[in-house]
């Protein structure tokens, strides 16, 4: 049986249902990432679990006990917030000690636990400071130490790295899993950064319009997105979603060009659909390639050591391509690289996703190659 289970929970504010019949389960020691765009109800969901907001319907069950109506202080839940929520009138030490003080812990043990947590998060040197004297990174570490020190059954992290700078965010992304795995903590982590979700989550739950649209491993979500909206949320630049019509049994018409279909799809009932193809699966060449779509390279915008290109087909369709900087497109014998250039884009439909035009739902299982990785 699952450690924490949320059972068909609903919450409305003024008839506007923010969370609708939402259910999920988290195993003990699991790291579940709740991912969704802003306004999808992520924060309300965490507050329901924390007990700050009571649901209209449904149950919250922790380790077999129904805690739906328990007060927050009776739940044994730790939480870290996007805005840190440190107590501004208490030192970092007192902030961290707060969960222990509520249990009336003996002073010696409290002291050693607080210092232990501060050491772990590398803030022992600023432990006597007030929050206003801390950098944002230190504030978030203090907040995490406070959430961890009481060793709660469940840890809720509400976009904790949102307000720290890029460097600290990256550091914490590496550090957090190690910290938490050591303690076997059950974590629900909310974020709107897909990289954070993929890096941290054992599983990712994609929240859209008050309900989960897909729950699965990062590989699953990336390689077998349930619909085109989810596909667009993961990946930078986002997946290309191209309108396609069936031309004949072996080809699709995309961007006014004929693109060959892989054999596995040639017999299926795919007629007109939306083809989702990730930028890294679009190969760009400066010489004509048979079967490739002629395009102009409108702009090259490097991104973290990848070369990202915005391509425009002759009918105006925009296609993103991305490749490692290391094998970047050869520069035209020293000629100026700026400005538009003619090129040819090969779309690897074997790695593409096929979505329904109106509903956006997935039409075909991914190719065995990708299904392999999605397991």
């Amino acid at each position, binding site marked *: 049986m699952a450690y924490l289970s949320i059972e068909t929970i609903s919450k409305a504010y003024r008839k506007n249902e923010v969370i609708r019949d939402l259910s999920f389960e988290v195993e003990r020691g699991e790291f579940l990432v709740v991912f969704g765009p802003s306004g999808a109800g992520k924060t309300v969901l965490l*507050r329901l679990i*924390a*007990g*700050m907001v009571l649901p209209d319907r449904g149950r919250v069950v922790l380790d077999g006990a129904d805690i739906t109506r328990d*007060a*927050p*202080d009776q*739940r044994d*839940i*730790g*939480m870290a*917030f996007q*805005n*840190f*929520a*440190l*107590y*501004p*009138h208490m030192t970092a030490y007192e902030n961290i000690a*707060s*969960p222990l*003080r*509520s*249990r009336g812990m003996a002073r010696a043990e409290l002291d050693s636990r607080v210092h232990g947590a501060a050491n772990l998060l590398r803030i022992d040197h600023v432990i006597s400071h007030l*929050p*206003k004297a801390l950098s944002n990174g230190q504030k978030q570490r203090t*907040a995490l130490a*406070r959430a961890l020190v*009481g060793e*709660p059954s469940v840890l809720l992290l509400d976009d904790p790295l949102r*307000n720290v700078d890029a460097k600290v965010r990256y550091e914490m992304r590496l550090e957090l899993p190690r910290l938490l795995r050591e303690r076997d903590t059950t974590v629900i982590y909310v974020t709107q950064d897909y990289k954070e979700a993929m890096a941290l989550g054992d599983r990712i739950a994609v929240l859209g319009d008050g309900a989960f649209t897909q729950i699965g491993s990062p590989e699953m979500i990336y390689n077998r997105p349930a619909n085109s909206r989810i596909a667009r949320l993961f990946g930078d630049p986002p997946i290309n979603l191209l309108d396609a019509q069936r031309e004949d049994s072996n080809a699709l018409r995309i961007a006014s060009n004929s693109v060959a279909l892989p054999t596995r799809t040639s017999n299926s009932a795919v007629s007109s659909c939306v083809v989702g193809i990730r930028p890294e699966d679009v190969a760009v060449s400066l010489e004509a390639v048979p079967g490739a779509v002629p395009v102009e390279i409108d702009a090259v915008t490097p991104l973290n050591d990848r070369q990202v290109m915005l391509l425009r087909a002759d009918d105006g369709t925009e296609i993103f391509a991305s490749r490692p900087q290391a094998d970047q497109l050869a520069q035209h014998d020293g000629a100026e690289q700026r400005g538009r250039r003619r090129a040819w884009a090969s779309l690897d439909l074997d790695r593409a996703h096929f979505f329904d035009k109106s509903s956006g739902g997935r039409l075909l299982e991914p190719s065995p190659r990708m299904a392999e990785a999605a397991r």
Partner: protein
Amino acid sequence: MSSQILRTLRIVLMVMVGLFFLFPLLWVVLMSFMTNVDILRSPPSPFFVPTLRNYVALISGHLSTSSGDVQIDYMHNLLNSVILSVCSVVVSLILGVPAAYAFARYKFRGGEDMAFTLLSFRFAPPLLVLLPLLGYFQTLHLYDTYFGLVWVYQLITLPLVLWIVRGYFEDVSEDIELAYRLDGHSWLATFFKISIPLARPGIAAAGLLSFIFAWNNFIFALILGSSAVQPVTVGALAFITASGIEYGQIAAALVLSVIPTLVLAIFTQRYLVEGLSLGAIKG
């Protein structure tokens, strides 16, 4: 060069403005050390032989005028002022702070209306309220009691506390309170250890303002109390005697009556400033 001139000009201007606003106060302080003769001399002169006569008269309670000795009870008035103001502020804080918290945190039916009604007491001219109140007070035997006056002072101080403190509570992030609850602390502990300390600058400001308003009230005390409970504002009327107005004593009374408020303001300042320096209440 030009900045030098500008700076000098700015200082001169500032001194002038300062003098303009502080002059009445300064003059009152000087007056409190003058005899009536000095005060009424024309043209007025800042040079005179200072005397403590006014203060001695106030403190001893014997006022000798040209038409004989008059008994005054100024020190008793001062004590009344302190009792009335302190009690009013304390009662207002005890009632108003939790109410302000409720208005800030919980949206309940009619909440806004209730808060507004409390504020609306301040709209009516006090006299309009007073005459019917006088009737009630006499029936209820509240006339000329501390309790009655403190009660009626709530009309002044409670809305003030409620509205000022409410704003401060609204600025305290709910997340901070939730965090403290999740640390395992009860609702009550959270209120006293988190909400109140974070709203303290607001509470201090509201308390100070309430005190000043209560202290300076005249009309309620004049009508709803006799000499037994009357504060300094009403007591000062005694200096208008049959033989003339005792300006010197009025000035000295004024100086004495300012002292408690001044002390309180200096004491409260620490908390007002603390609010500014804590800063990151929101984040």
